[in-house]
């Protein structure tokens, strides 16, 4: 596998990651959202493995496997169980309408392209052009957290943001040290469990996972 060809594969996978990020941004069904998240994890994992192969960095294989087991198998499983237990498969309400959200997303991609242009000029890595996509994925995850009202959707947005950060780390510096990555993976896992417990509590207290409901927590003046 030549460097050129590997760069092409990585670019294509990056495009797919971006596509799934946009898919999550516009998807209304909860199960569809989780499926898209799973796909994003899979593309991320493959791309990490390819980067590891090209750069000769062995520890990237481990983080690729970690991504695969955590973001493709375990987290989607937990989310599916949550969705089934809480019976929230129905359509998700959005704060801003979907076409407008898409346009904002496109603007974010352009913004991150401009933001990372200097880095791209200086860097010598195979993956330098992917950095813009990674940053865009982070921002789209953030946008998803802002535009959705549902607590579970916001968590998926958060996880998508983490995917973007992981991707950025891989593409900018061939990955963080393994210790850091293990720590982050553990954090994500624990966070998912805590989110799950919180969801159950919110659900029993408010009978809904719409975060707007939490405005009721305010004391009346």
């Amino acid at each position, binding site marked *: 596998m030549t460097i050129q060809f590997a760069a092409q594969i990585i*670019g*294509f996978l*990056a495009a797919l990651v971006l596509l799934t990020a946009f898919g999550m941004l516009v998807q209304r069904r909860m199960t569809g959202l989780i499926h898209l998240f799973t796909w994003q994890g899979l593309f991320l994992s493959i791309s990490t493995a390819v980067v590891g192969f090209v750069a000769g960095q062995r520890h990237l294989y481990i983080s690729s496997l970690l991504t695969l087991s955590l973001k493709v198998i375990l987290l989607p499983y937990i989310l599916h169980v949550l969705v089934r237990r809480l019976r929230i498969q129905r359509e998700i309400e959005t704060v801003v309408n979907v*076409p407008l959200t898409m346009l904002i997303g496109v603007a974010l991609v352009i913004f991150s392209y401009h933001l990372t242009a200097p880095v791209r000029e200086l860097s010598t890595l195979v993956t330098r052009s992917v950095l813009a996509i990674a940053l865009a994925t982070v921002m789209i995850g953030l946008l998803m957290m802002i535009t959705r009202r549902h607590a579970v959707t916001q968590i998926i947005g958060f996880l998508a943001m983490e995917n973007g950060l992981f991707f950025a780390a891989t593409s900018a510096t061939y990955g963080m040290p393994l210790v850091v990555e293990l720590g982050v993976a553990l954090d994500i896992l624990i966070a998912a469990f805590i989110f799950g417990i919180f969801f159950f509590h919110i659900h029993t207290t408010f009978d809904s996972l719409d975060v707007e409901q939490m405005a009721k927590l305010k004391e009346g003046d």
Partner: protein
Amino acid sequence: MNIYPFVIEILQFLVLLGAAPVFAGWVKMLKCWSQGRSSPGLFQPYRDIIKLFSKDLVLAENASWIFRFTPYLVFGATLLAGGIIPILSTDLPLAATADVIVLVALFAIARFFTALSGMDIGTAFGGMGSSREMTIASLAEPAMLMAIFTISLASKSTSLSQMVQVVYSGQSVLRPSIAFALLAFVLIVLAETGRIPVDNPATHLELTMIHEAMILEYSGRHLALIEWAGMMKLFLFIMFGIAAFFPWGIAAWGDLYAIPFAFLFMLLKLGIAGVSLVLIETGLAKMRLFRLTEFLGSAFLLATLGMLSYFILE
């Protein structure tokens, strides 16, 4: 003076006129099979057209020249578009006079006059159909242009035969921009040719029809021309997709002997395209009109992403 390009151009017109109804019949046939019905056969569209041509013309009393002129204009514009899109060979003299932007404009003129003629008689359905058609067009056209510009960027030309040449001799297969453009293009084809998630070509139900509502008042040879133009439009969009994304097998410049093979390849690719079109159509349900903004919005999004990924990744 070299005569080959003109021979090819004439051949191409003949193929377009002859193969478009067969392709429409093929799609109908597959659809019948997929729904467990027996099909009317591959050549039913021909019989329909001949029947319509032999029937008398019924014109509304208050029909203006627009109403009478539109079928010829729609047919002519679609035929002209067939002279630009490389179906058999990239060696087309007409292709030098018009690029893809003109191509989009040709279809736009046909649509504009169809919408006008829908309103011309003054029936409620015609006006409704026209307004819906223009709503869809206003969303589909930017997406279409965006998708085309993405391919133009990759091939550094807006001339169709030039674009096909570059894709044909393509160095890299894994180009995310082209893949995005292809996805966007599939959505646009469904919208532009009035296929299922957007419009149902077989329906005459008052509330759901879009294209059929506009041409409801046409009869006789006028209707025959419009129906034929509709089939040619579907054929041309599919051929455009094939030429821009899967041009393998098309005859190169001045290569007259490759034409029969190009024809065979075309038939093969059309067969596959028909199957995938029917798969999409049977797999999806017709969309609510107000959901179409999202459908075409995603087409626009995909095309824009294609363009961006050209700058970012390539």
